[in-house]
């Protein structure tokens, strides 16, 4: 049997595997129903199924022209699902956040503007609700924006003084204020939780199914089906390639279905379809490669199952599957890029939240393909040796 025959044999192995898996209800639940249901539940928990629901209080205790303009700009920038409410005093804001009346609050403390002229500038305070992650993230972003603007004002002041000019008055500094820039970005004008949790939950479950390749190979080895297949002119590497191809197909079917369902039923906008398809295929390849590596180092189906689940949850925790974008601290955000989940999620977020295109997610796809390549090579190296009784 030549190369063409091996390719046909590999395709045949893949087709039979896909056919058998699609006839298996538990896989359908695991790969499609489960992630869609979880995405829907979590999306609803974060507000309406379609949009962000964040209510953030704004407290101006400073009373300076800059702080007043900033607070006024925020309140005027309120939009559907993202509301800024003026609140009298930090104590009142804290009480309302604790009561759940507000998701979070931003406090510009008294003397903040004046402190900018000194050596120790003050800090904008954020009151974060314990269970209102999106509101808290918005409040932090607002505080960051105000701090950046204050720093710009300090820089302008310092530059003026250095150039021989007089220290600008507070009114002058307020005039330097950049336009209020609170806007939602994404497909259309919404940042949908479902657009994040759809791929997020899909990825979580997809990585949990990484054990499919391993379980299939080990199950067939135990039942001697693999012996029968390998007693034909089919090479061990061909069988492995066929199993991996089936995992890729199943992964693409799973994520594509989740895409379709969350878009139609939950109104999730995943972004540029070409980019979504690119990321789905790259992710499915990475999962297949990881699954093959799991198969290569597992001796029993139980070990493969445990190992695959451990890997799935580790990647999910590190990759940020359970936490919305913007909430992750920078350190954890960087850490998430150690996992394929992290790259995939950042890629999907780039498409849905930042209007990215397929070109923008090429680096994400490349990293996922690298995962597929490296883990696939591990499997190609180890698995045939084990099947041949050499390892």
């Amino acid at each position, binding site marked *: *049997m*030549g190369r063409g*025959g091996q390719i*046909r*044999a590999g395709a*045949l192995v893949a087709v*039979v595997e896909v056919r*058998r898996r699609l*006839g*298996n209800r538990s896989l359908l639940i695991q790969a499609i129903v489960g992630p869609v249901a979880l995405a829907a539940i979590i999306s609803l928990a974060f507000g309406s199924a379609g949009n962000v629901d964040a209510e953030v209080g704004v407290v101006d205790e400073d009373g300076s022209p800059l702080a007043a303009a900033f607070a006024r700009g925020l309140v005027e920038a309120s939009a559907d699902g993202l509301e800024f409410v003026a609140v009298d005093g930090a104590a009142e804001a804290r009480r309302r956040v604790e009561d759940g009346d507000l998701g979070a609050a931003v406090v510009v403390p008294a003397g903040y503007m004046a402190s900018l002229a000194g050596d120790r500038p003050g800090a904008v305070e954020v009151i974060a609700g314990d269970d209102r992650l999106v509101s808290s993230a918005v409040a932090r972003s607002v505080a960051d924006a105000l701090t950046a603007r204050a720093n710009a004002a300090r820089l302008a002041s310092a530059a003026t003084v250095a150039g021989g000019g007089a220290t600008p008055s507070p009114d002058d500094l307020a005039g330097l204020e950049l336009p209020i820039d609170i806007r939602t970005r994404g497909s259309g004008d919404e940042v949908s939780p479902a657009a994040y949790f759809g791929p997020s939950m899909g990825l979580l479950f997809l990585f949990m199914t990484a054990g499919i390749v391993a379980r299939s190979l080990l199950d067939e080895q135990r*039942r*001697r*089906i693999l*012996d*029968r*297949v*390998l*007693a*034909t*002119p*089919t*090479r*061990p590497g061909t069988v492995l390639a066929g199993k991996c191809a089936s995992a890729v197909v199943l992964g693409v079917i799973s994520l594509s279905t989740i895409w379709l369902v969350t878009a139609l039923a939950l109104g999730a906008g995943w972004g540029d379809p070409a980019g979504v398809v690119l990321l789905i295929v790259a992710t499915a390849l990475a999962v297949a490669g990881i699954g093959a590596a799991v198969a290569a180092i597992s001796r029993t189906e139980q070990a493969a199952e445990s190992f695959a689940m451990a890997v799935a949850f580790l990647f999910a925790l590190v990759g940020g599957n359970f936490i919305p974008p913007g909430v992750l601290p920078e350190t954890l955000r960087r850490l998430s890029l150690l996992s394929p989940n992290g790259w995939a999620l950042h890629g999907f977020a780039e498409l849905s939240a930042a209007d990215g295109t397929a070109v923008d997610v090429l680096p994400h796809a490349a990293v996922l393909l690298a995962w597929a390549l490296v883990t696939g090579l591990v499997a190609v190296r180890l698995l*045939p040796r084990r*099947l*041949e*009784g*050499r390892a």
Partner: protein
Amino acid sequence: MREVDAAARAEAEAEAEAGPDDSNTDTGTGTDTDVVLACRGLRKAYGDRVAVDGVSLTIARGETYGLLGPNGAGKTTTISMACGLLRPDAGEVTVAGRPISPTATTAKAAIGLVPQDVALYEDLSAVDNLRFFGRLQGLRGRELTERVATVLEVVGLADRAGDRVETYSGGMKRRANIAVGLLHRPQLLVLDEPTVGVDPQSRNAILESVEALGAEGLSVLYTTHYMGEAERLCDRVGIIDEGRIVAEGTRRQLVAQIGAGDRIEVAATGDLAAFATRLEGAATPGLLGVERRDGAVSVRVTDGPAAVAAVVGAAERAGVAISSIEVVEPDLEDVFLHLTGKALRD
């Protein structure tokens, strides 16, 4: 013929290029068209445990060869190497003249393997299983369709061909298991304990099928730990224990090796002591010994049928009335016991 040789050589070279471990070379057996399987000095160890230690055997075209031994003797490991599933630590295997290895493809096409377990996708129908394995063997189109129909008829599953295998009885699953091995008209059918856990009726059907295939000229390698199956089916038997073939030959050759001789079991009434004395004193051909029990005398001789007349004569002279007489040949159980000091276990 020259074209065939050139094509075969080209294919062998292509396989050799497939990988660094594909360097087995045909040492000459391949030119012997009467030998379908040749194993030489096979050895396989798992850590400190040696599963197969220096096994050599050959199977001629049309021969049914039995590998008889208890569980754990090394039968399955031997056939795994013979089928190219396991790479031996030492030794070599040629099938139909071609070296076999896990990556060899041509030699594998000559083998039909029937594993001990029902190695089928039970959530697929028999037809789907057969079409899958048939395609892996390179069958296509009409040929595949015809072969699937033929083997289903052979194993008597044509009327249930479209049903999922999981709905079959144990015996039907076993027959479907054998059908896959026959699909591509292999030169060598390898059956690994095909009757383990099978009801007597299905077992008999399987044995009849193997007998019929052997009669049609198919070479068969049959592993079993049932002495009766080996005696019934096999032209030659290799007795394997602890990874070594301890004896090999036809049943009669094996029995002759241990020198046990036949037993003539005589049930009789009268003076059995006098009968025994006459047997020992008279010229009983090939007499090895006489043993007297209640109502019976057991006479051990080198050739039972040749000594029957002398035994009957001795009984008449001793005034003993014979109620039954039976010549019992030593069986492979006796041979195994003699060679290994232990009994074959079920």
